[in-house]
Protein backbone atom coordinates (compact mmCIF):
# COMPACT_ATOMS: atom_id res chain seq x y z
CA UNK A 1 0.00 0.00 0.00
CA UNK A 2 1.10 3.49 -0.73
CA UNK A 3 0.39 5.14 2.55
CA UNK A 4 3.29 7.47 2.50
CA UNK A 5 2.65 8.86 -0.95
CA UNK A 6 -1.00 9.37 -0.12
CA UNK A 7 -0.11 11.51 2.83
CA UNK A 8 2.26 13.52 0.80
CA UNK A 9 -0.20 14.16 -1.93
CA UNK A 10 -2.86 15.08 0.56
CA UNK A 11 -0.61 17.72 1.95
CA UNK A 12 0.24 18.90 -1.52
CA UNK A 13 -3.40 19.01 -2.41
CA UNK A 14 -4.12 21.55 0.25
CA UNK A 15 -1.42 23.75 -1.09
CA UNK A 16 -2.33 23.87 -4.76
CA UNK A 17 -5.58 25.20 -6.07
CA UNK A 18 -8.09 22.39 -6.29
CA UNK A 19 -9.10 21.13 -9.69
CA UNK A 20 -12.68 20.63 -8.68
CA UNK A 21 -14.12 22.22 -5.62
CA UNK A 22 -17.54 22.08 -4.11
CA UNK A 23 -18.28 24.80 -1.61
CA UNK A 24 -20.98 24.51 0.92
CA UNK A 25 -23.75 23.30 -1.35
CA UNK A 26 -27.24 22.74 -0.17
CA UNK A 27 -29.67 20.71 -2.26
CA UNK A 28 -33.41 20.43 -1.99
CA UNK A 29 -35.51 17.92 -3.88
CA UNK A 30 -39.09 18.65 -4.82
CA UNK A 31 -38.93 21.99 -3.02
CA UNK A 32 -39.22 20.30 0.35
CA UNK A 33 -36.73 17.50 0.86
CA UNK A 34 -33.42 18.88 2.08
CA UNK A 35 -30.75 16.41 1.15
CA UNK A 36 -27.36 18.11 1.18
CA UNK A 37 -26.83 20.39 4.12
CA UNK A 38 -23.72 22.25 3.15
CA UNK A 39 -21.24 19.88 1.57
CA UNK A 40 -17.75 21.05 0.70
CA UNK A 41 -15.05 18.98 -0.91
CA UNK A 42 -12.05 19.34 -3.16
CA UNK A 43 -10.43 17.22 -5.78
CA UNK A 44 -6.87 18.18 -6.61
CA UNK A 45 -5.66 17.70 -10.13
CA UNK A 46 -4.53 14.19 -10.96
CA UNK A 47 -5.85 12.71 -7.76
CA UNK A 48 -8.38 10.08 -6.91
CA UNK A 49 -10.84 11.12 -4.26
CA UNK A 50 -13.32 8.73 -2.71
CA UNK A 51 -16.70 9.80 -1.43
CA UNK A 52 -17.97 7.35 1.13
CA UNK A 53 -21.09 7.04 3.16
CA UNK A 54 -24.09 4.96 3.97
CA UNK A 55 -27.14 4.55 1.78
CA UNK A 56 -28.92 7.80 1.38
CA UNK A 57 -26.09 9.90 2.69
CA UNK A 58 -26.19 12.01 -0.44
CA UNK A 59 -23.26 10.76 -2.47
CA UNK A 60 -25.13 10.47 -5.72
CA UNK A 61 -26.76 13.79 -5.10
CA UNK A 62 -23.37 15.40 -4.63
CA UNK A 63 -22.11 13.98 -7.88
CA UNK A 64 -25.23 15.05 -9.71
CA UNK A 65 -24.86 18.52 -8.28
CA UNK A 66 -21.40 18.75 -9.75
CA UNK A 67 -22.43 17.49 -13.15
CA UNK A 68 -25.57 19.66 -13.07
CA UNK A 69 -27.73 16.66 -13.78
CA UNK A 70 -29.79 17.53 -10.75
CA UNK A 71 -32.09 19.81 -12.68
CA UNK A 72 -33.70 16.91 -14.43
CA UNK A 73 -34.67 15.36 -11.13
CA UNK A 74 -36.43 18.32 -9.65
CA UNK A 75 -33.57 19.06 -7.36
CA UNK A 76 -32.43 22.61 -6.67
CA UNK A 77 -29.09 23.84 -5.51
CA UNK A 78 -30.13 26.50 -3.07
CA UNK A 79 -26.75 27.43 -1.72
CA UNK A 80 -23.11 27.12 -2.48
CA UNK A 81 -21.08 26.87 -5.63
CA UNK A 82 -19.06 24.44 -7.67
CA UNK A 83 -15.86 25.36 -9.44
CA UNK A 84 -13.95 23.34 -11.95
CA UNK A 85 -10.52 24.42 -13.16
CA UNK A 86 -11.06 27.63 -11.26
CA UNK A 87 -14.28 28.49 -13.02
CA UNK A 88 -17.77 28.41 -11.67
CA UNK A 89 -19.65 25.66 -13.39
CA UNK A 90 -22.93 25.34 -11.56
CA UNK A 91 -24.79 27.24 -14.25
CA UNK A 92 -23.37 25.32 -17.16
CA UNK A 93 -25.15 22.62 -19.07
CA UNK A 94 -23.86 19.07 -18.75
CA UNK A 95 -22.78 19.26 -22.36
CA UNK A 96 -20.48 22.18 -21.68
CA UNK A 97 -19.09 20.36 -18.68
CA UNK A 98 -18.30 17.28 -20.71
CA UNK A 99 -16.62 19.48 -23.26
CA UNK A 100 -14.49 20.94 -20.50
CA UNK A 101 -13.48 17.43 -19.60
CA UNK A 102 -15.78 16.50 -16.75
CA UNK A 103 -17.87 13.44 -17.29
CA UNK A 104 -20.07 11.36 -15.05
CA UNK A 105 -20.87 7.69 -14.86
CA UNK A 106 -24.31 7.58 -13.38
CA UNK A 107 -25.47 5.26 -10.71
CA UNK A 108 -27.69 2.48 -12.00
CA UNK A 109 -26.00 2.20 -15.37
CA UNK A 110 -28.36 4.18 -17.56
CA UNK A 111 -27.35 2.63 -20.83
CA UNK A 112 -29.31 3.50 -23.94
CA UNK A 113 -31.34 0.34 -24.08
CA UNK A 114 -32.21 0.40 -27.75
CA UNK A 115 -28.74 1.16 -28.96
CA UNK A 116 -26.21 -1.57 -29.35
CA UNK A 117 -23.25 -1.72 -27.00
CA UNK A 118 -21.02 -0.27 -29.67
CA UNK A 119 -23.42 2.55 -30.45
CA UNK A 120 -23.62 3.26 -26.74
CA UNK A 121 -19.88 3.61 -26.63
CA UNK A 122 -19.85 5.80 -29.71
CA UNK A 123 -22.37 8.22 -28.22
CA UNK A 124 -19.87 8.66 -25.44
CA UNK A 125 -17.56 10.32 -27.94
CA UNK A 126 -20.22 12.78 -28.99
CA UNK A 127 -18.46 15.85 -27.72
CA UNK A 128 -15.20 15.00 -29.41
CA UNK A 129 -14.68 15.62 -33.03
CA UNK A 130 -12.51 12.68 -33.78
CA UNK A 131 -11.52 11.11 -36.99
CA UNK A 132 -12.77 7.65 -37.75
CA UNK A 133 -9.42 6.17 -36.92
CA UNK A 134 -9.19 7.91 -33.59
CA UNK A 135 -12.68 6.78 -32.78
CA UNK A 136 -11.76 3.22 -33.62
CA UNK A 137 -8.76 3.54 -31.41
CA UNK A 138 -10.74 4.77 -28.44
CA UNK A 139 -13.19 1.99 -29.03
CA UNK A 140 -10.46 -0.60 -29.12
CA UNK A 141 -9.09 0.76 -25.91
CA UNK A 142 -12.42 0.28 -24.17
CA UNK A 143 -12.72 -3.19 -25.62
CA UNK A 144 -9.26 -3.86 -24.36
CA UNK A 145 -10.30 -2.89 -20.87
CA UNK A 146 -13.56 -4.82 -21.09
CA UNK A 147 -13.19 -7.76 -23.43
CA UNK A 148 -16.66 -8.92 -22.42
CA UNK A 149 -18.10 -5.89 -24.19
CA UNK A 150 -16.44 -6.82 -27.41
CA UNK A 151 -18.24 -10.13 -27.55
CA UNK A 152 -21.56 -8.37 -26.98
CA UNK A 153 -20.89 -5.33 -29.17
CA UNK A 154 -23.85 -5.84 -31.47
CA UNK A 155 -26.40 -6.65 -28.77
CA UNK A 156 -28.86 -4.00 -27.74
CA UNK A 157 -27.70 -2.75 -24.38
CA UNK A 158 -31.12 -3.33 -22.88
CA UNK A 159 -30.66 -7.05 -23.28
CA UNK A 160 -27.27 -7.39 -21.71
CA UNK A 161 -26.61 -8.47 -18.17
CA UNK A 162 -26.31 -6.05 -15.30
CA UNK A 163 -22.55 -6.22 -15.18
CA UNK A 164 -22.19 -5.81 -18.91
CA UNK A 165 -24.29 -2.68 -18.70
CA UNK A 166 -22.12 -1.32 -15.94
CA UNK A 167 -19.03 -1.90 -18.05
CA UNK A 168 -20.76 -0.26 -20.95
CA UNK A 169 -21.58 2.80 -18.86
CA UNK A 170 -18.00 3.14 -17.69
CA UNK A 171 -16.62 2.52 -21.15
CA UNK A 172 -18.96 5.10 -22.57
CA UNK A 173 -17.67 7.84 -20.33
CA UNK A 174 -14.07 6.91 -21.12
CA UNK A 175 -14.85 7.51 -24.77
CA UNK A 176 -15.10 11.23 -24.07
CA UNK A 177 -11.46 11.22 -22.93
CA UNK A 178 -12.30 13.34 -19.91
CA UNK A 179 -9.78 14.90 -17.60
CA UNK A 180 -12.01 14.34 -14.62
CA UNK A 181 -14.48 11.53 -14.08
CA UNK A 182 -17.23 11.31 -11.51
CA UNK A 183 -17.82 7.64 -10.87
CA UNK A 184 -20.95 6.62 -9.03
CA UNK A 185 -20.64 3.14 -7.60
CA UNK A 186 -18.60 1.63 -10.38
CA UNK A 187 -18.25 -1.68 -8.63
CA UNK A 188 -21.93 -2.32 -8.17
CA UNK A 189 -22.95 -5.64 -9.66
CA UNK A 190 -19.51 -6.36 -11.00
CA UNK A 191 -17.64 -9.56 -10.44
CA UNK A 192 -14.74 -9.12 -7.99
CA UNK A 193 -12.09 -9.74 -10.60
CA UNK A 194 -13.48 -7.04 -12.80
CA UNK A 195 -13.84 -4.71 -9.84
CA UNK A 196 -10.13 -4.94 -9.37
CA UNK A 197 -9.70 -4.37 -13.05
CA UNK A 198 -11.91 -1.33 -13.03
CA UNK A 199 -9.96 0.20 -10.21
CA UNK A 200 -6.85 -0.82 -12.05
CA UNK A 201 -8.09 1.15 -15.01
CA UNK A 202 -8.82 4.08 -12.76
CA UNK A 203 -5.34 4.00 -11.39
CA UNK A 204 -3.92 3.52 -14.85
CA UNK A 205 -5.73 6.49 -16.35
CA UNK A 206 -4.82 8.49 -13.32
CA UNK A 207 -1.17 7.69 -13.60
CA UNK A 208 -0.75 7.71 -17.36
CA UNK A 209 -3.17 10.38 -18.46
CA UNK A 210 -3.41 12.39 -15.30
CA UNK A 211 -7.18 11.96 -15.11
CA UNK A 212 -8.71 12.98 -11.79
CA UNK A 213 -11.45 10.95 -10.20
CA UNK A 214 -14.19 11.53 -7.71
CA UNK A 215 -15.75 8.24 -6.89
CA UNK A 216 -18.72 7.46 -4.78
CA UNK A 217 -18.31 3.94 -3.60
CA UNK A 218 -19.76 1.51 -1.14
CA UNK A 219 -16.93 -0.89 -1.48
CA UNK A 220 -14.96 1.12 1.01
CA UNK A 221 -12.12 -1.28 1.27
CA UNK A 222 -11.21 -1.19 -2.39
CA UNK A 223 -12.00 2.47 -2.73
CA UNK A 224 -9.64 3.49 0.04
CA UNK A 225 -6.99 1.22 -1.33
CA UNK A 226 -6.92 3.07 -4.63
CA UNK A 227 -7.88 6.59 -3.57
CA UNK A 228 -5.57 9.34 -2.47
CA UNK A 229 -8.07 11.17 -0.40
CA UNK A 230 -11.45 10.43 1.09
CA UNK A 231 -14.54 12.14 2.38
CA UNK A 232 -17.19 10.52 4.47
CA UNK A 233 -20.71 11.75 4.09
CA UNK A 234 -23.46 11.19 6.59
CA UNK A 235 -26.94 12.60 6.33
CA UNK A 236 -25.96 15.21 3.82
CA UNK A 237 -22.92 16.45 5.69
CA UNK A 238 -19.24 15.73 5.45
CA UNK A 239 -18.37 14.14 8.75
CA UNK A 240 -14.82 13.11 8.15
CA UNK A 241 -12.15 13.75 5.62
CA UNK A 242 -8.54 12.94 5.22
CA UNK A 243 -5.94 11.03 3.31
CA UNK A 244 -7.18 7.62 2.27
CA UNK A 245 -4.62 5.84 4.33
CA UNK A 246 -5.56 7.80 7.42
CA UNK A 247 -9.15 6.96 6.94
CA UNK A 248 -8.39 3.33 6.37
CA UNK A 249 -6.67 3.25 9.68
CA UNK A 250 -9.27 5.15 11.58
CA UNK A 251 -10.96 2.95 14.14
CA UNK A 252 -14.44 4.20 13.46
CA UNK A 253 -14.08 3.82 9.75
CA UNK A 254 -12.68 0.39 10.25
CA UNK A 255 -15.61 -0.67 12.30
CA UNK A 256 -18.41 0.90 10.37
CA UNK A 257 -17.18 0.92 6.82
CA UNK A 258 -14.69 -1.83 6.60
CA UNK A 259 -16.45 -4.29 8.86
CA UNK A 260 -13.38 -4.82 10.95
CA UNK A 261 -13.63 -4.42 14.67
CA UNK A 262 -10.63 -4.85 16.77
CA UNK A 263 -9.60 -8.31 15.80
CA UNK A 264 -9.74 -8.12 12.04
CA UNK A 265 -12.56 -9.17 9.77
CA UNK A 266 -15.51 -11.08 11.12
CA UNK A 267 -17.52 -13.61 9.22
CA UNK A 268 -20.86 -12.40 8.00
CA UNK A 269 -22.39 -15.44 9.58
CA UNK A 270 -21.17 -14.42 12.98
CA UNK A 271 -22.72 -11.02 13.11
CA UNK A 272 -25.01 -11.67 15.95
CA UNK A 273 -26.78 -8.42 16.50
CA UNK A 274 -28.39 -5.92 14.31
CA UNK A 275 -25.97 -3.15 14.28
CA UNK A 276 -27.15 0.25 15.26
CA UNK A 277 -25.46 2.70 13.05
CA UNK A 278 -23.31 5.18 14.78
CA UNK A 279 -23.76 8.72 13.63
CA UNK A 280 -20.97 11.14 14.09
CA UNK A 281 -23.07 14.18 14.09
CA UNK A 282 -26.63 13.11 14.53
Amino acid at each position, binding site marked *: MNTATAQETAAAANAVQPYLSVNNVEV*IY*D*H*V*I*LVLKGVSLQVPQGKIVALLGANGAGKSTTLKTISTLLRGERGDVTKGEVTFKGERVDQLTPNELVKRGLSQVMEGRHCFGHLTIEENLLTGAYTRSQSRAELRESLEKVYHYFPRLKTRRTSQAGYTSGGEQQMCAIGRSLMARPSMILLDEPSMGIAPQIVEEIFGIVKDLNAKENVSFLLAEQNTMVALRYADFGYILENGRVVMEGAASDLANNEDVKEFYLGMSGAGRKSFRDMKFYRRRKRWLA
Partner: protein
Amino acid sequence: MIYRETGQFKTSYETDGQILPIRQDRSMLFGTLAVALLVLPFAASPYMLSAILIPFLIFSLAALGLNILTGYAGQLSLGTAAFMAVGAFASYNFVLRIPGIPILLAFVLGGLSAALVGIAFGLPSLRIRGFYLAAATLATQFFVVWCLTKIGWLTNYSASGVITAQKIEILGYAFDTPAAKYVLVLLVVAVMALLAKNMVRSNVGRSWMAVRDMDVAAEVIGFRLMRTKLLAFAVSSFYCGVAGALYAFAYLGTVEPEAYNLELSFRILFMIIIGGVGSILGCFLGAAFIVLLPVFLNVLAHSLALPTSVASNLELMVFGALIIFFLIVEPHGLARLWQIGKEKLRLWPFPH
Protein backbone atom coordinates in the same frame (compact mmCIF):
# COMPACT_ATOMS: atom_id res chain seq x y z
CA MET B 1 -56.33 26.85 12.45
CA ILE B 2 -52.76 25.93 11.80
CA TYR B 3 -52.15 22.80 9.87
CA ARG B 4 -50.42 20.53 12.32
CA GLU B 5 -50.65 16.88 12.98
CA THR B 6 -48.90 16.93 16.28
CA GLY B 7 -50.89 15.32 18.98
CA GLN B 8 -52.69 13.09 16.54
CA PHE B 9 -51.42 9.64 17.23
CA LYS B 10 -52.56 6.68 15.31
CA THR B 11 -53.12 3.87 17.67
CA SER B 12 -54.35 1.23 15.29
CA TYR B 13 -53.73 0.24 11.72
CA GLU B 14 -57.38 0.90 11.17
CA THR B 15 -57.07 4.59 11.90
CA ASP B 16 -53.84 4.77 10.00
CA GLY B 17 -55.55 3.20 7.03
CA GLN B 18 -58.18 5.89 6.97
CA ILE B 19 -58.70 7.81 3.79
CA LEU B 20 -57.52 11.02 5.38
CA PRO B 21 -55.41 10.31 8.39
CA ILE B 22 -54.98 13.95 9.34
CA ARG B 23 -57.80 15.53 11.23
CA GLN B 24 -57.65 18.88 9.49
CA ASP B 25 -57.96 17.20 6.12
CA ARG B 26 -60.92 15.26 7.33
CA SER B 27 -62.75 18.25 8.63
CA MET B 28 -62.00 20.08 5.41
CA LEU B 29 -63.48 17.30 3.32
CA PHE B 30 -66.58 17.03 5.43
CA GLY B 31 -66.91 20.78 5.44
CA THR B 32 -66.70 20.89 1.66
CA LEU B 33 -69.22 18.12 1.30
CA ALA B 34 -71.59 19.74 3.74
CA VAL B 35 -71.41 23.03 1.91
CA ALA B 36 -71.82 21.30 -1.42
CA LEU B 37 -74.85 19.40 -0.27
CA LEU B 38 -76.57 21.71 2.16
CA VAL B 39 -75.66 25.20 1.11
CA LEU B 40 -74.96 25.25 -2.59
CA PRO B 41 -78.27 23.88 -3.84
CA PHE B 42 -79.98 26.83 -2.20
CA ALA B 43 -77.36 29.49 -2.40
CA ALA B 44 -75.88 28.97 -5.86
CA SER B 45 -77.50 30.57 -8.85
CA PRO B 46 -79.06 28.34 -11.49
CA TYR B 47 -76.20 29.38 -13.74
CA MET B 48 -73.66 28.16 -11.22
CA LEU B 49 -75.53 24.93 -10.76
CA SER B 50 -76.43 23.99 -14.27
CA ALA B 51 -73.55 25.43 -16.24
CA ILE B 52 -70.64 25.06 -13.87
CA LEU B 53 -71.22 22.69 -11.02
CA ILE B 54 -73.12 19.95 -12.81
CA PRO B 55 -70.70 19.65 -15.71
CA PHE B 56 -67.81 19.99 -13.30
CA LEU B 57 -69.06 17.03 -11.29
CA ILE B 58 -69.83 14.96 -14.36
CA PHE B 59 -66.45 15.63 -15.86
CA SER B 60 -64.85 14.80 -12.53
CA LEU B 61 -66.59 11.47 -12.61
CA ALA B 62 -65.42 10.75 -16.13
CA ALA B 63 -61.94 11.86 -15.16
CA LEU B 64 -62.12 9.52 -12.21
CA GLY B 65 -62.92 6.73 -14.61
CA LEU B 66 -60.06 7.60 -16.90
CA ASN B 67 -57.71 8.08 -13.99
CA ILE B 68 -58.44 4.58 -12.76
CA LEU B 69 -57.40 3.28 -16.13
CA THR B 70 -54.59 5.64 -16.98
CA GLY B 71 -53.41 6.96 -13.67
CA TYR B 72 -53.68 3.82 -11.61
CA ALA B 73 -53.48 0.98 -14.09
CA GLY B 74 -51.18 2.81 -16.47
CA GLN B 75 -53.15 2.15 -19.65
CA LEU B 76 -53.27 5.34 -21.64
CA SER B 77 -56.65 5.68 -23.31
CA LEU B 78 -58.14 8.13 -25.75
CA GLY B 79 -61.51 6.46 -25.93
CA THR B 80 -63.16 7.91 -22.83
CA ALA B 81 -65.93 9.67 -24.68
CA ALA B 82 -66.85 6.44 -26.44
CA PHE B 83 -67.46 4.74 -23.12
CA MET B 84 -69.47 7.72 -22.01
CA ALA B 85 -71.53 7.42 -25.17
CA VAL B 86 -72.16 3.75 -24.52
CA GLY B 87 -73.33 4.58 -21.01
CA ALA B 88 -75.63 7.31 -22.22
CA PHE B 89 -77.19 5.48 -25.13
CA ALA B 90 -77.52 2.27 -23.16
CA SER B 91 -79.25 4.05 -20.28
CA TYR B 92 -81.54 5.74 -22.76
CA ASN B 93 -82.47 2.40 -24.25
CA PHE B 94 -83.01 0.74 -20.90
CA VAL B 95 -85.40 3.47 -19.85
CA LEU B 96 -87.09 3.38 -23.22
CA ARG B 97 -87.49 -0.33 -23.50
CA ILE B 98 -88.10 -1.44 -19.95
CA PRO B 99 -91.05 0.60 -18.78
CA GLY B 100 -90.89 1.61 -15.17
CA ILE B 101 -87.24 0.83 -14.69
CA PRO B 102 -85.79 2.94 -11.86
CA ILE B 103 -83.56 5.53 -13.43
CA LEU B 104 -80.62 4.83 -11.14
CA LEU B 105 -80.78 1.20 -12.15
CA ALA B 106 -80.75 2.30 -15.76
CA PHE B 107 -77.60 4.31 -15.06
CA VAL B 108 -75.99 1.32 -13.45
CA LEU B 109 -76.97 -0.88 -16.37
CA GLY B 110 -75.67 1.78 -18.73
CA GLY B 111 -72.42 1.74 -16.80
CA LEU B 112 -72.28 -2.03 -17.00
CA SER B 113 -72.82 -1.94 -20.74
CA ALA B 114 -69.94 0.47 -21.00
CA ALA B 115 -67.92 -1.90 -18.85
CA LEU B 116 -68.59 -4.73 -21.28
CA VAL B 117 -67.50 -2.62 -24.19
CA GLY B 118 -64.51 -1.57 -22.12
CA ILE B 119 -63.50 -5.17 -21.56
CA ALA B 120 -63.80 -5.94 -25.25
CA PHE B 121 -61.63 -3.01 -26.22
CA GLY B 122 -59.31 -3.61 -23.31
CA LEU B 123 -58.26 -6.99 -24.63
CA PRO B 124 -55.55 -5.59 -26.89
CA SER B 125 -53.93 -3.97 -23.86
CA LEU B 126 -52.59 -7.36 -22.97
CA ARG B 127 -50.13 -7.02 -25.78
CA ILE B 128 -49.97 -3.37 -26.66
CA ARG B 129 -48.49 -0.71 -24.46
CA GLY B 130 -47.96 2.99 -24.08
CA PHE B 131 -48.71 5.35 -26.90
CA TYR B 132 -49.33 2.44 -29.20
CA LEU B 133 -52.22 1.49 -26.99
CA ALA B 134 -53.37 5.07 -26.74
CA ALA B 135 -53.52 5.43 -30.48
CA ALA B 136 -55.21 2.07 -30.76
CA THR B 137 -57.92 3.10 -28.30
CA LEU B 138 -58.93 5.69 -30.84
CA ALA B 139 -60.45 2.72 -32.63
CA THR B 140 -62.96 2.55 -29.79
CA GLN B 141 -63.68 6.21 -30.09
CA PHE B 142 -64.44 6.15 -33.79
CA PHE B 143 -66.05 2.75 -33.89
CA VAL B 144 -68.54 3.38 -31.11
CA VAL B 145 -69.64 6.72 -32.49
CA TRP B 146 -69.93 5.16 -35.92
CA CYS B 147 -72.10 2.36 -34.54
CA LEU B 148 -74.35 4.82 -32.82
CA THR B 149 -74.90 6.72 -36.05
CA LYS B 150 -75.36 3.58 -38.09
CA ILE B 151 -77.55 1.37 -35.94
CA GLY B 152 -80.95 2.98 -35.90
CA TRP B 153 -82.27 0.79 -33.13
CA LEU B 154 -79.87 2.35 -30.65
CA THR B 155 -81.30 5.79 -31.22
CA ASN B 156 -84.86 4.57 -31.51
CA TYR B 157 -84.79 5.28 -35.24
CA SER B 158 -84.73 9.01 -34.84
CA ALA B 159 -84.08 10.47 -38.25
CA SER B 160 -80.86 12.17 -37.30
CA GLY B 161 -79.56 9.83 -34.63
CA VAL B 162 -80.33 12.28 -31.88
CA ILE B 163 -81.73 11.06 -28.61
CA THR B 164 -83.67 12.95 -26.05
CA ALA B 165 -82.90 11.79 -22.57
CA GLN B 166 -85.94 10.97 -20.54
CA LYS B 167 -86.90 12.87 -17.43
CA ILE B 168 -85.18 11.81 -14.25
CA GLU B 169 -87.65 10.59 -11.69
CA ILE B 170 -86.82 8.73 -8.53
CA LEU B 171 -89.61 7.42 -6.33
CA GLY B 172 -92.01 9.81 -7.92
CA TYR B 173 -89.83 12.85 -7.35
CA ALA B 174 -88.91 14.59 -10.57
CA PHE B 175 -85.39 15.94 -10.70
CA ASP B 176 -86.02 18.76 -13.10
CA THR B 177 -84.65 21.88 -11.50
CA PRO B 178 -80.94 22.62 -11.69
CA ALA B 179 -80.69 22.30 -7.91
CA ALA B 180 -82.33 18.89 -7.86
CA LYS B 181 -80.19 17.62 -10.72
CA TYR B 182 -77.15 18.99 -9.01
CA VAL B 183 -77.91 17.19 -5.77
CA LEU B 184 -78.45 13.93 -7.63
CA VAL B 185 -75.21 14.28 -9.56
CA LEU B 186 -73.34 15.27 -6.44
CA LEU B 187 -74.54 12.23 -4.55
CA VAL B 188 -73.71 9.88 -7.39
CA VAL B 189 -70.28 11.38 -7.80
CA ALA B 190 -69.54 11.45 -4.09
CA VAL B 191 -70.48 7.83 -3.65
CA MET B 192 -68.52 6.74 -6.69
CA ALA B 193 -65.50 8.77 -5.64
CA LEU B 194 -65.61 7.08 -2.26
CA LEU B 195 -65.77 3.68 -3.90
CA ALA B 196 -62.89 4.59 -6.14
CA LYS B 197 -60.84 5.72 -3.19
CA ASN B 198 -61.56 2.44 -1.45
CA MET B 199 -60.53 0.51 -4.49
CA VAL B 200 -57.27 2.29 -4.94
CA ARG B 201 -56.26 1.88 -1.34
CA SER B 202 -56.96 -1.82 -1.19
CA ASN B 203 -55.61 -4.77 -3.06
CA VAL B 204 -57.27 -4.01 -6.42
CA GLY B 205 -55.73 -0.59 -6.44
CA ARG B 206 -52.35 -1.95 -5.59
CA SER B 207 -52.62 -4.50 -8.34
CA TRP B 208 -53.36 -1.72 -10.80
CA MET B 209 -50.49 0.40 -9.66
CA ALA B 210 -48.17 -2.57 -9.71
CA VAL B 211 -49.10 -3.30 -13.29
CA ARG B 212 -48.64 0.34 -14.13
CA ASP B 213 -45.24 0.69 -12.55
CA MET B 214 -43.72 -2.55 -13.75
CA ASP B 215 -45.88 -5.20 -15.23
CA VAL B 216 -43.26 -7.93 -15.40
CA ALA B 217 -42.54 -7.59 -11.71
CA ALA B 218 -46.23 -7.54 -10.95
CA GLU B 219 -46.61 -10.82 -12.73
CA VAL B 220 -43.75 -12.33 -10.79
CA ILE B 221 -45.36 -11.31 -7.56
CA GLY B 222 -48.53 -13.09 -8.52
CA PHE B 223 -50.83 -10.51 -10.06
CA ARG B 224 -52.52 -11.77 -13.16
CA LEU B 225 -52.02 -9.24 -15.86
CA MET B 226 -55.08 -10.11 -17.86
CA ARG B 227 -57.43 -9.97 -14.96
CA THR B 228 -55.96 -6.82 -13.53
CA LYS B 229 -55.94 -4.92 -16.78
CA LEU B 230 -59.39 -6.00 -17.83
CA LEU B 231 -60.77 -5.17 -14.41
CA ALA B 232 -59.26 -1.73 -14.75
CA PHE B 233 -60.86 -1.34 -18.15
CA ALA B 234 -64.19 -2.54 -16.82
CA VAL B 235 -64.23 -0.32 -13.76
CA SER B 236 -62.97 2.65 -15.67
CA SER B 237 -65.55 2.21 -18.40
CA PHE B 238 -68.24 1.76 -15.81
CA TYR B 239 -67.37 5.12 -14.32
CA CYS B 240 -67.21 6.74 -17.72
CA GLY B 241 -70.48 5.11 -18.68
CA VAL B 242 -72.28 6.52 -15.68
CA ALA B 243 -70.69 9.88 -16.33
CA GLY B 244 -71.87 9.69 -19.92
CA ALA B 245 -75.39 8.88 -18.82
CA LEU B 246 -75.39 11.82 -16.44
CA TYR B 247 -73.97 14.00 -19.20
CA ALA B 248 -77.01 13.17 -21.31
CA PHE B 249 -79.67 12.95 -18.63
CA ALA B 250 -78.69 15.60 -16.12
CA TYR B 251 -76.81 18.02 -18.29
CA LEU B 252 -77.43 18.24 -22.01
CA GLY B 253 -80.81 16.56 -22.30
CA THR B 254 -80.78 16.09 -26.04
CA VAL B 255 -77.63 14.57 -27.48
CA GLU B 256 -76.31 13.29 -30.73
CA PRO B 257 -73.58 10.67 -30.90
CA GLU B 258 -71.23 13.44 -32.02
CA ALA B 259 -71.50 14.98 -28.57
CA TYR B 260 -69.19 12.18 -27.44
CA ASN B 261 -66.47 12.99 -29.89
CA LEU B 262 -62.75 12.77 -29.70
CA GLU B 263 -62.54 16.28 -28.39
CA LEU B 264 -64.40 15.22 -25.27
CA SER B 265 -62.01 12.31 -24.80
CA PHE B 266 -59.13 14.70 -24.98
CA ARG B 267 -60.70 17.14 -22.57
CA ILE B 268 -60.98 14.43 -20.01
CA LEU B 269 -57.44 13.36 -20.60
CA PHE B 270 -56.34 16.95 -20.06
CA MET B 271 -58.19 16.95 -16.79
CA ILE B 272 -56.34 14.02 -15.33
CA ILE B 273 -52.96 15.16 -16.51
CA ILE B 274 -53.43 18.67 -15.25
CA GLY B 275 -55.06 17.46 -12.06
CA GLY B 276 -52.67 14.68 -11.36
CA VAL B 277 -52.30 11.25 -12.87
CA GLY B 278 -52.99 8.68 -10.20
CA SER B 279 -54.80 10.88 -7.76
CA ILE B 280 -58.48 10.98 -6.87
CA LEU B 281 -58.32 14.56 -5.74
CA GLY B 282 -56.55 15.36 -8.98
CA CYS B 283 -59.62 14.40 -10.98
CA PHE B 284 -61.63 17.08 -9.26
CA LEU B 285 -58.91 19.69 -9.47
CA GLY B 286 -58.29 18.92 -13.12
CA ALA B 287 -61.96 19.03 -14.00
CA ALA B 288 -62.29 22.34 -12.22
CA PHE B 289 -59.30 23.70 -14.09
CA ILE B 290 -60.50 22.65 -17.51
CA VAL B 291 -64.10 23.68 -16.90
CA LEU B 292 -63.42 26.95 -15.16
CA LEU B 293 -60.35 28.31 -16.85
CA PRO B 294 -61.92 28.95 -20.27
CA VAL B 295 -64.89 30.57 -18.57
CA PHE B 296 -62.63 32.71 -16.50
CA LEU B 297 -60.52 33.68 -19.49
CA ASN B 298 -63.63 34.45 -21.46
CA VAL B 299 -64.97 36.73 -18.77
CA LEU B 300 -61.59 38.35 -18.43
CA ALA B 301 -61.26 38.92 -22.16
CA HIS B 302 -64.66 40.56 -22.18
CA SER B 303 -63.81 42.85 -19.36
CA LEU B 304 -60.76 43.97 -21.29
CA ALA B 305 -63.04 44.89 -24.18
CA LEU B 306 -60.83 43.32 -26.80
CA PRO B 307 -62.23 42.68 -30.25
CA THR B 308 -63.87 39.29 -29.99
CA SER B 309 -61.83 37.44 -32.55
CA VAL B 310 -58.61 38.63 -30.95
CA ALA B 311 -59.99 37.77 -27.54
CA SER B 312 -60.97 34.28 -28.60
CA ASN B 313 -57.58 33.51 -30.00
CA LEU B 314 -55.83 35.00 -27.02
CA GLU B 315 -57.99 32.87 -24.77
CA LEU B 316 -56.86 29.80 -26.59
CA MET B 317 -53.22 30.83 -26.39
CA VAL B 318 -53.37 31.67 -22.71
CA PHE B 319 -55.12 28.38 -22.04
CA GLY B 320 -52.37 26.48 -23.82
CA ALA B 321 -49.66 28.51 -22.14
CA LEU B 322 -51.15 27.92 -18.71
CA ILE B 323 -51.23 24.18 -19.27
CA ILE B 324 -47.56 24.30 -20.09
CA PHE B 325 -46.85 26.58 -17.19
CA PHE B 326 -48.51 24.27 -14.69
CA LEU B 327 -46.72 21.26 -16.10
CA ILE B 328 -43.42 23.00 -15.71
CA VAL B 329 -44.18 24.09 -12.18
CA GLU B 330 -45.38 20.64 -11.27
CA PRO B 331 -45.32 17.81 -13.78
CA HIS B 332 -47.33 15.64 -11.47
CA GLY B 333 -50.30 17.90 -11.59
CA LEU B 334 -52.30 20.13 -9.33
CA ALA B 335 -52.84 17.37 -6.81
CA ARG B 336 -49.11 17.18 -6.19
CA LEU B 337 -48.89 20.93 -5.99
CA TRP B 338 -51.56 20.81 -3.35
CA GLN B 339 -49.68 18.13 -1.49
CA ILE B 340 -46.42 20.04 -1.60
CA GLY B 341 -48.30 23.06 -0.37
CA LYS B 342 -49.53 21.03 2.55
CA GLU B 343 -46.09 19.68 3.31
CA LYS B 344 -44.74 23.20 3.35
CA LEU B 345 -47.54 24.23 5.62
CA ARG B 346 -46.69 21.38 7.93
CA LEU B 347 -43.12 22.56 8.20
CA TRP B 348 -44.07 26.19 8.44
CA PRO B 349 -42.48 28.49 9.52
CA PHE B 350 -39.34 26.53 8.72
CA PRO B 351 -38.57 26.21 5.04
CA HIS B 352 -37.48 22.57 5.26
